[in-house]
């Protein structure tokens, strides 16, 4: 009897031990996790963790680059940066979790397309106005005032836009070799309708290729035509024109411009300029170009775009710009840097942001890597891979962080690309609602229902596959789904927003 009891006790103990063992096996490498001295004492540098979006970057040498950056920052502001790239795949999940807890995180890339407004609503990122005034007064000289103001939410700055292309124009871009072969001069093209004649020639001369392909199921042929004229205010539900002063929202899908371009796309489709499976194909334009199935596509542009596409497609490209440059309402808030509520040193974090906008060496390290290892000067203000280096070990997605105008352009790009960009940005027609963000909380049901209708009709109509006569049905279903309620709600918010400007 006693023996049994002893045995039972031992079993229970074992059981408890098993549970315990599982729960607290040693905590792994703690030195990475330890938040550094938060007081920012005189001798010990503060470590600032910086979470940013990683979209197919190459970060083999991230640690080396980080060490180089830290040499500069330690000297200048007695702080170190810990770079924490997060894949887009994991971004929403991981940043939400980090911001829910108290893990060390100081700087974070924020974006209107990635929860910016909900981060502000939950208090996960902090107000920056006073900090900018005190610790980063130089930032406002790096970008147009409208852009910096355009990132505000309810009159408060929560994010600082990266310096990049703030505007975009639209047009057609195609393979240079094919156009040259058939003596086609794109500069004669003034409207999207003018492209029809060119497509006709291309179709006859190159029967194995499509003169125009769609970029994706959401960036359709028709979208690429109307977006240069229409300010979608975020979601294309309730829109404004760029070239009038009205702030009265209207339904894009009933507008003349939508019908006009849907008809044009349908004409192209019927003539066989567009791949027959355009409304369902998941292939990107780049894949189609590389497979020699496509000659060109409609796209948004910026200075230096041809060179960028040349790299992407692996062939010389030539483009024609059809619309004027415009800056949409979400331009400013599309990529920003914010300070997380987790930060124990918001002041230091702001000083770090200041460096990201003013220190040429830091920006180049972050964007291009270490000089001599990841790039060398090409002599004309541009940079190239060092001789003998075939494999890139560091390549960052540049556009989202800090002042990109300080980064050296790569060879092949115009050395004065950033001057061109500045002129381009300044020439752009600004949205009347720059900085306005539509809060969909009150119309959640409608948003979901309308989205279903959009998913059903848009790929068909906007790739040109469906006859534009379906637009009437499309609109009827949109209205049944609550389109008008959404537009009314947006109008209400827009009016209130305009009052505060």
């Amino acid at each position, binding site marked *: 009897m006693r023996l049994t009891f002893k045995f039972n006790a031992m079993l229970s103990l074992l059981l408890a031990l098993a549970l315990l063992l599982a729960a607290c096996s040693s905590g792994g490498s703690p030195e990475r996790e330890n938040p550094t001295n938060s007081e920012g004492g005189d001798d010990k540098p503060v470590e600032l963790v910086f979470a940013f979006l990683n979209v197919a970057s190459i970060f083999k040498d991230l640690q080396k680059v980080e060490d180089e950056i830290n040499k500069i920052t330690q000297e200048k502001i007695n702080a170190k940066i810990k770079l924490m790239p997060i894949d887009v795949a994991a971004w929403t999940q991981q940043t939400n979790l980090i911001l829910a807890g108290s*893990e060390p995180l100081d700087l974070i890339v924020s974006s209107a397309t990635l929860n910016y407004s909900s981060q502000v609503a939950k208090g996960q990122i902090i107000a920056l106005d006073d900090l900018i005034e005190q610790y980063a007064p130089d930032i406002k000289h790096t970008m147009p005032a409208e852009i910096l103001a355009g990132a505000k939410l309810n009159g408060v700055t929560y994010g600082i836009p990266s310096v990049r292309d703030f505007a975009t124009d639209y047009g057609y871009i195609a393979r240079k070799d094919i156009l040259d072969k058939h003596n086609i001069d794109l500069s004669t093209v003034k409207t999207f309708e003018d492209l029809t004649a060119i497509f006709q020639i291309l179709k006859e001369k190159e029967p194995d290729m499509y003169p125009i392909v769609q970029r994706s199921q959401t960036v359709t042929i028709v979208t690429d035509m109307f977006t240069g004229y229409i300010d979608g205010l975020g979601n294309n539900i309730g829109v404004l024109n760029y070239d009038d002063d009205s702030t009265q929202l209207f339904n894009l899908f009933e507008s003349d411009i939508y019908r006009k371009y849907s008809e044009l796309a349908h004409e192209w489709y019927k003539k066989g300029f567009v791949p027959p499976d355009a409304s369902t194909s998941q292939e990107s334009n780049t894949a189609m170009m590389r497979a020699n*199935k496509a000659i060109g596509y409609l796209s948004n542009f910026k200075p230096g775009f041809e060179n960028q596409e040349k790299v992407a497609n692996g062939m010389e490209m030539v483009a024609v710009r059809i619309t004027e440059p415009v800056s949409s309402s979400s331009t400013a808030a599309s990529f920003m840097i914010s300070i997380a509520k987790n930060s124990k040193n918001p002041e230091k974090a702001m000083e770090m942001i200041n460096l990201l906008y003013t220190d040429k060496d830091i920006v180049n390290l972050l964007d291009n890597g270490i000089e001599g290892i990841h790039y060398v000067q090409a002599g004309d203000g541009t940079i190239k891979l060092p001789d003998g280096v075939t494999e890139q070990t560091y390549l960052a997605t540049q556009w989202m962080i800090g002042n990109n105008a300080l980064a050296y352009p790569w060879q092949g790009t115009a050395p004065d690309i950033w001057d061109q960009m500045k002129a381009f940005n300044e020439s752009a027609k600004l949205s009347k609602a720059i900085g306005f963000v539509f809060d969909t909380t009150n119309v959640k049901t409608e948003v979901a229902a309308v989205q279903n209708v959009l998913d059903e009709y848009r790929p068909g109509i906007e790739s040109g596959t469906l006859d534009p006569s379906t637009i009437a049905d499309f609109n009827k279903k949109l209205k049944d789904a609550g389109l008008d309620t959404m537009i009314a709600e947006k109008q209400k918010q827009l009016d209130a927003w305009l009052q505060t400007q």
Partner: protein
Amino acid sequence: MRSNEMNQTALNIFMVVLTAACLLPFLLLIISSFASEQSIIKLGYTFFPSEYSLEAYKYLWGESSSLLRAYGITILITVIGTSVGLTISALLAYPLSRGVLPFKYFFSFVVFFTLLFNGGLVPTYLVYTEIFHMKNTLLALIIPGLLTNGFFILLIRTYFATSIPVPIIESAYIDGASEYRIFFSIVMPLSLPILATIGLMLTIAYWNDWFNGLIYLTEPRLFSIQNLLNRMLTNIQFLQQNSFAGNNASAIAANLPTNAVRMAMAVIGVVPLLCVYPFFQKYFVKGLVVGAVKG
């Protein structure tokens, strides 16, 4: 007699169709991984590509340093996770199966409770990262899998309770065997079917796990093969659905792996498991039937 034959034929046809429905996608996956990119874009995924190519596998070979590392991580966490998980589960299930354990029902209830309720993602994450500091460690890939297997424990307990006759244990006891001896020399060998079943389930769970990697890891050197694959596919999907990257989208797209490479990655992710499966199969069927019918 005749109708019996007819039935048999109908059943056979049904089974053949069912098997084909399971196997054909695999075949398509493997064929696509050997198709040239041109062929995939022209014809889509097809059983008869116009052109075959080893390009995808060459690309993966070029990436072998990061892929091999991911492979290593996957194998490591699978081996450790499965063996430790199996040990813990058996050690926990055995006492629960014995009538003499004090508070037996309480402990059983605790195990059962975890089947129905859990802390939710955010609290779980906070506990792992802020109390146990498991972020960016391999433990984050192993520990969560060890603790959420109430179902396995109940399966093993039921097997122990119903398939190991108490007289065997008692006779061993009389012969002077210690409890450890009884457990390791008598109970465990008699329980091979259920252990193999649970072992396989754990293996599959660890091999296919990408979620823990998705939330606990930011260091690419710790990514497992499924995590790598999942991130790659989600990245591609994200770029297709969001025009946010605007001007830069195509520059990014150029860095992404091609269709054939995605297929090839899926192939190398799944093949090792396919190779292991047949060895478990005979236990698997038996163990599942035993566990389920008598449970």
